[in-house]
């Protein structure tokens, strides 16, 4: 193609072309759709309980119904549903923050020491009488400290190799096991509060009332907004440490802020509903698949997805509990939602891992 007289010219052939910039795909329809799913899940969760029939619930919501039905629906079911939704949102956003900050698709509050640490904090505070279910704020603070302790332990253990996702994952599992062991030891030393402590280990929305809701929503809102404000730096951080630093980001500071935010969100959720397994690890993958890599959209998207998943799991758990009660003729049998998310999550994790064997984050 070159002749004797014309010097070959790289990249010249493209010069005259000027195609139009395609319009970006709007995420709004997907966000609205997911919001509708959350609303549907909320309704299902309120309807799913045992003591009041769906017709009774409907009557209460319209302002009628007898006193007992009103109490059950308005003071038990509605706050429980709200707590389930917001706790799910918190865990999902916490997971997304951790995965982005650590650049690790296998990071989640459950496997980075955050959730086990928060559980340990809550259990220690309760077991030694520093807090109980009547003083939920003390539990939140204790869970936060515990979560920070867990994450800090991981930070110290991974040392200089903390940029390696595998290293973080391995040490995260180790830290989580150690913290779980410590929690078990506390349970042995101070078994008095055991009954109320087990719920933190599995995760349940049973008995969550307005008091919990009143504590959870301002906390979740505050840290949720903080998480969204970090969307810019975190999107950049997901492009890689080098790339982010090169583009002008102080990576250590951004990562630190994201970790604090993630710990606070996870601790808020843990102190109200306990360690709901796999939500923080898997829902971010769902959110990223739905909303893409721009965290300005994906952070709220993850919050909605987490709310839908935990709300849905709670409704399922109630229906399932009812089924089990009929099956075993045991009236007081309930299925904790944490058992359900853990069981379903394990299956989903297998799907995620198998679907993308060589996927580099």
């Amino acid at each position, binding site marked *: 193609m070159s002749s004797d007289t014309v010097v070959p010219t790289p990249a010249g052939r493209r010069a005259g072309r000027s195609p139009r910039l395609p319009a970006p795909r709007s995420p709004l329809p997907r966000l609205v759709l997911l919001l509708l799913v959350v609303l549907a899940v909320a309704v299902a969760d309120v309807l799913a309980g045992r003591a009041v029939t769906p017709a009774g619930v409907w009557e209460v919501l319209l302002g009628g119904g007898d006193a007992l039905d009103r109490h059950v629906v308005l003071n038990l079911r509605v706050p429980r549903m709200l707590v389930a939704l917001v706790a799910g949102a918190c865990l999902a956003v916490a997971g997304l923050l951790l995965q982005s900050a650590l650049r690790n698709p296998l990071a989640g509050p459950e496997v980075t020491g955050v959730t086990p640490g928060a559980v340990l904090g809550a259990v220690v505070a309760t077991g030694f009488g520093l807090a109980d279910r009547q003083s939920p704020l003390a539990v939140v603070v204790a869970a936060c400290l515990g979560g920070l302790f867990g994450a800090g332990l991981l930070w110290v253990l991974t040392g200089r190799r903390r940029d390696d996702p595998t290293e973080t994952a391995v040490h995260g599992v180790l830290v989580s096991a150690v913290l779980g062991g410590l929690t078990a030891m506390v349970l042995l030393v101070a078994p008095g509060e055991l009954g109320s402590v087990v719920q933190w280990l599995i995760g349940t929305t049973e008995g969550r009332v307005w008091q919990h809701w009143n504590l959870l929503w301002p906390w979740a809102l505050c840290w949720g907004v903080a998480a969204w404000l970090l969307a*810019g730096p975190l999107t950049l951080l997901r492009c890689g440490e*080098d790339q982010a630093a090169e583009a002008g980001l102080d990576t250590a500071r951004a990562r630190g802020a994201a970790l604090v935010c993630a710990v606070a969100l996870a601790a808020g959720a843990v102190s109200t509903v306990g360690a709901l397994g796999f939500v923080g690890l898997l829902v971010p993958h769902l959110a990223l698949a739905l909303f*893409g890599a721009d965290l300005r959209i994906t952070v709220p998207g993850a919050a909605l997805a987490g709310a839908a998943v935990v709300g849905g799991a709670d409704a399922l758990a109630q229906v399932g509990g009812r089924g089990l009660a009929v099956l075993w003729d045991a009236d007081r049998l309930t299925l904790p939602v944490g058992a359900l998310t853990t069981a379903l999550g394990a299956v989903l994790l297998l799907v995620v891992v198998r679907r993308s064997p060589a996927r580099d984050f």
Partner: protein
Amino acid sequence: MRNAKGATPMEETRGPAGVPGPVGTAPVRGVPPAPEGGSADRPGRPPGITVRDVVFGYPDRPVLRGVDLRVAPGELTALIGMNGCGKSTLLRVIAGLLRPERGSVSLGDDDLMGMSRREAARRVALLHQSAPPVPGMTVRQLVRQGRYAARGPLGMLRGGDDAAVTRALADTGVTEWAERPVDSLSGGERQRVRLALALARDTRILLLDEPTTYLDLHHQLEVLGTVVRLRRERDLTVVMVLHDLGHAARFAERIVALRDGRVVADGPPGEVVTPRLLAEVLDVVGRVSVDPVGGWPVCHPDHPLNH
């Protein structure tokens, strides 16, 4: 973009081709603030780079052992040398990503050492050796990340692209892929996107770390040709690390050779690229001739030099 239309095949290489003799003596670098170029909105010359006696190393391994280098405003310089000679490290020091133990770096009249990460990133952009793309991130989203230094953490939350993003996409010819995920592109396409990311920074200094690695010859020439064209259109100061001495001799106005963390040769390709350079800098025995059409030096490496 209007400036994309001005580039005709002949213009791409008019400087080297039009002047007999060694390329380096061609007055290409004296390009005036191009009336037909895209830099009319950015008056003044781009800043030069001054590196003074820079020493940098890791605890067990010294990398740069006192590098002095002055890059004139608007110059296109190639850094060459063997693996581990400190080329990439020097680029990272100039970009402000590594802090030298001794010595200083100035961009124009400003001392790089006193700048915050973001301030430095507003003045100098570095195209890294390839990093794995983020799954699902579109070309537009990735290139938009280049605006972080200008917009700041909260500014990134605002919607919309900057003009710099649109222009960077157009200048590298990737506009039509804006909504495609980066991980679905081929290696050559990705490199153009990464060049767009560096250009979106809208800096007057552009550093490129082996921009042609892993690319086939077609895409190597494409990327280098784009760099040459953009340097002229945007009036940039460019320093690039190149492994291929042939590319360096053809595309750069000046070649700086590093060996063991020191500058060992510095000058226009016609003067610097000699059999002695091949032996002393690259440990290769070979011959050098002159391209009959373009006039730039061409290397004919024979075999590795065994000490």
